């Protein structure tokens, strides 16, 4: 196990071409963060994205996926990236910044202007459809 270093690139994840976060997913689960996965990384990914995975685990990796600059916090820039990806850039800059501001306002528990993992979990665990949407079927 794990000694066959089969390399997965995100070209091979063709089925998920439509996911706006596909690159992020590949990066988060790959060992060196460049989006190339070993078999173990791949298995990791599907163990997290499987239907059986628990909330906490999913929330943890969701946080990592949305943390675009890997600094351990979801800051305004990360939020902007998320919105832009989700809407394919159809919102104007004003609207994007309004949305980001509101998100920070809602979920930032300690008012440091960015979302820590705790803030994120606090928020996401109340979301009604997080569990039902954050998984991948193969």
């Amino acid at each position, binding site marked *: 196990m794990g000694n066959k270093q089969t390399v997965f690139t995100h070209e091979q994840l063709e089925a*998920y071409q439509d996911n*706006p976060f596909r690159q992020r997913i590949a990066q988060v689960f790959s060992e060196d963060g460049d989006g190339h996965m070993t078999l173990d990384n791949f298995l990791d990914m599907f163990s997290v994205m499987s239907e059986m995975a628990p909330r906490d685990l999913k929330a943890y990796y969701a946080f990592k996926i949305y943390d675009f600059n890997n600094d351990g916090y979801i800051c305004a820039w990360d939020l902007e990236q998320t919105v832009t990806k989700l809407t394919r850039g159809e919102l104007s800059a004003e609207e994007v910044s309004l949305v980001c501001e509101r998100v920070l306002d809602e979920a930032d*528990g300690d008012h440091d202007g960015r979302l820590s993992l705790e803030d994120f979990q606090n928020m996401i665990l109340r979301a009604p459809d997080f569990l039902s949407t954050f998984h991948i079927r193969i």
Partner: protein
Amino acid sequence: MSHRLKGRGEEGDRSGRRPSRKQAARAEGAAGRRGAQPGQKEQAGGSPRPGSPRRKQAECRRHLEPLGEQGRSSAERTSKGRRKRDGRASLKKQRAPPKTEKEVSRQEEMWKRPKKHRPPSLASSASGAECLSEEERARILEQVEDSKKLIATMRNKPWPMTKKLRELREAQEFVEKYEGVLGKGKGKRLYAYRMLVAKKWVKFKRDFDNFKTQCIPWEMKIKDIESHFGSSVASYFIFLRWMYGVNLVLFGLIFGLVIIPEVLMGVPYGSIPRKTVPRAEEEKAMDFSVLWDFEGYIKYSALFYGYYNNQRTIGWLRYRLPMAYFMVGVSVFGYSLMIVIRSMASNTQGRASDGESANFTFSFKMFTSWDYLIGNSETADNKYASITTSFKESIVDEQESNKEENIHLTRFLRVLANFLIICCLCGSGYLIYFVVKRSQEFSKMQNVSWYERNEVEIVMSLLGMFCPPLFETIAALENYHPRVGLKWQLGRIFALFLGNLYTFLLALMDDVHLKLSNEETIKNITHWTLFNYYNSSGWNESVPRPPLHPADVPRGSCWETAVGIEFMRLTVSDMLVTYITILLGDFLRACFVRFMNYCWCWDLEAGFPSYAEFDISGNVLGLIFNQGMIWMGSFYAPGLVGINVLRLLTSMYFQCWAVMSSNVPHERMFKASRSNNFYMGLLLLVLFLSLLPVAYTIMSLPPSFDCGPFSGKNRMYDVIHETIENDFPTFLGKIFAFLANPGLIIPAILLMFLAIYYLNSVSKSLSRANAQLRKKIQALRVVEKSHKSVKGRRSTAESEDTAKDASQNATQLQLTEEGTTPHPASQNQTPGKKAQDPGTSSSASGTTLPASRHLSGAQPPGVRPDSGPARSQTHPWRSASGKSALRPPH
């Protein structure tokens, strides 16, 4: 390495937080633990040997002791035995950041229960060193249980796969080995079986859910529309679908209990006068123009009231058709009332539960709206559109709530707008009145033109076409939020349509009364004709005359059928007007704008004509009023519901197509109110309004003498009396008579009022309590937020002070037993120390030991270990989970 460190951290964590347990361990430590030290060393070399514990006490002790130790810490540490000594040494260091505090917290919880009875048993084991005594057995058992739990919860851990595999294998080995000792080894298989069942169950549930979703008609169409046009447009289509469902049920009722029995078992067409086309109409009865007006053969068919015979029972089933007809008419209203009220109630219930999501509107949209299951590019496009739409909707809401403006101006404009609209309503009311009066004059004249005949309908259609846009223009003055604006618009158009409806009804009533007054003469004529026919001379007296052909019998005008025909016509013309409006107003306009744009002098798409927006208010009200027509007409035209079902079905497809092909989304998209209770409320009002005329005609007008199931009776509801008298035993009749006594009914009504009052006040007080609780939660959250932010600020200052405190408290610390409070220290380090690589810290254990021990005690009692420093740790997962594990309940 990291694995070992984690284990260590855990142990520290555990012992640090459970003093009672710790003391017990200490008590035991003197007798057992120190003595077992060699055994531990032995174990450090390899895997624990099960051996034969029963043979020698010492050996048994050696094996079991480390187990107990491990068991106490956590199941994860099963693999940790071989590093025990190392771990013990570095415990003092207390350098290792706890890797999976989350796990600890969870496991701590599992530990809590068995722990309660632990300390005494441990003490006893310390005194009497019984091999495999009850306690030890229990301890192994617990440990095995823990390993099993670890296996079960393996997937909860954010570890890389290799580590998971290793841990899993170790835990499984452990379980296999020691389950043998305890005499049960089928855990693995049972576990595998359970997992299999769980998996199958999940799959089954998923398939079943998919199946259920597929069973919802037009779900994909509506989702499609929702993603492009927003939830407000989709709410119309959902309403349409709901309406279709209701109408299907009504159709089933009427069709199954009235029309089919009549067709199957009633006397066939042409056998009696009411089932035959009169001689005068026979020639034209099959012409399309006649049929189109629901005259001719259609008029004398089971679609209308007049066709039904007043025979008490029909067919070999002795089916009581008149009774069934009456009961179905009543139950159509009963069912509609029930279903409308029930769906209103369920909508209200749904609204109460989701107070949470109001706090995180944007966050939820941002982080949970993408469905990772989407693997189809078309669906993905829709999803992108719908996310953008929903963001826009929320932004409009947001902007609307923050808007500040000149209140006086707005107020003035709103009053002005309302004034203008009231003027419009009065004007249109007068116009209708005028036209109706004129039409009554026309009806007395002989040859009137097509326009004069249809003037009322034309005027009403024109009003319906032009007033709503006018209202909308005026409503632009008011500057409401679009959702509120939609409600106003709905209310105004409702008032307009209501006027139309009631003038229509009044005209109809006049007609009915006219026909009723003529009825007596027609009755006489009929009798006279029949009498003359049978008694006329010039026929051979010995042979009985063949009965008069039913087509030749003179008959009354049958006002019920006339009313039914009116409603039928109105429904059909309404449908046609709607479709033509869509075709001309939306589709042709869209085509024109789209294709003429190439050769036009200004930009048609962005400029004047542009594409049409979907008119939610008009369509919703059209639907509601149409339904009112159905309710009113269905008693006199049982086939009306069937036509309506067809209409709804076609308009579902047609409008879906029209929206997607030729409409553009609203400029300011807005979210539909979660429950479409406003629509339902209007529907309920219309239902009530349409119940009134039907009830009036049933209760106070005599049925026609020669058509319909109630002919020959004084009133339609006499059919119930008749049934009770003839078909029920006499005492039941008496009971019914007694129940109908006003002396009983009035108290019953009073009682109902009291009950309503009581329930109403209860629900009010409940909702008040609900609101208060919500407020409390809100306040708590605010407090928590501010608390956290204060703590966050304070903690940074604190961590700088820690070193000082540490040195001050050093002496105090020496007294504490080693390894008792190691864990808080690991969190309470200064950021600089934390940044150190765990590896180097463990290697430098000797040197850093005293300092860190000081640190561990440096914790002032008032400060919780979950304060600042944890936050500033480099690894967010650990810090956050640690916090959640440690946070005391506020």
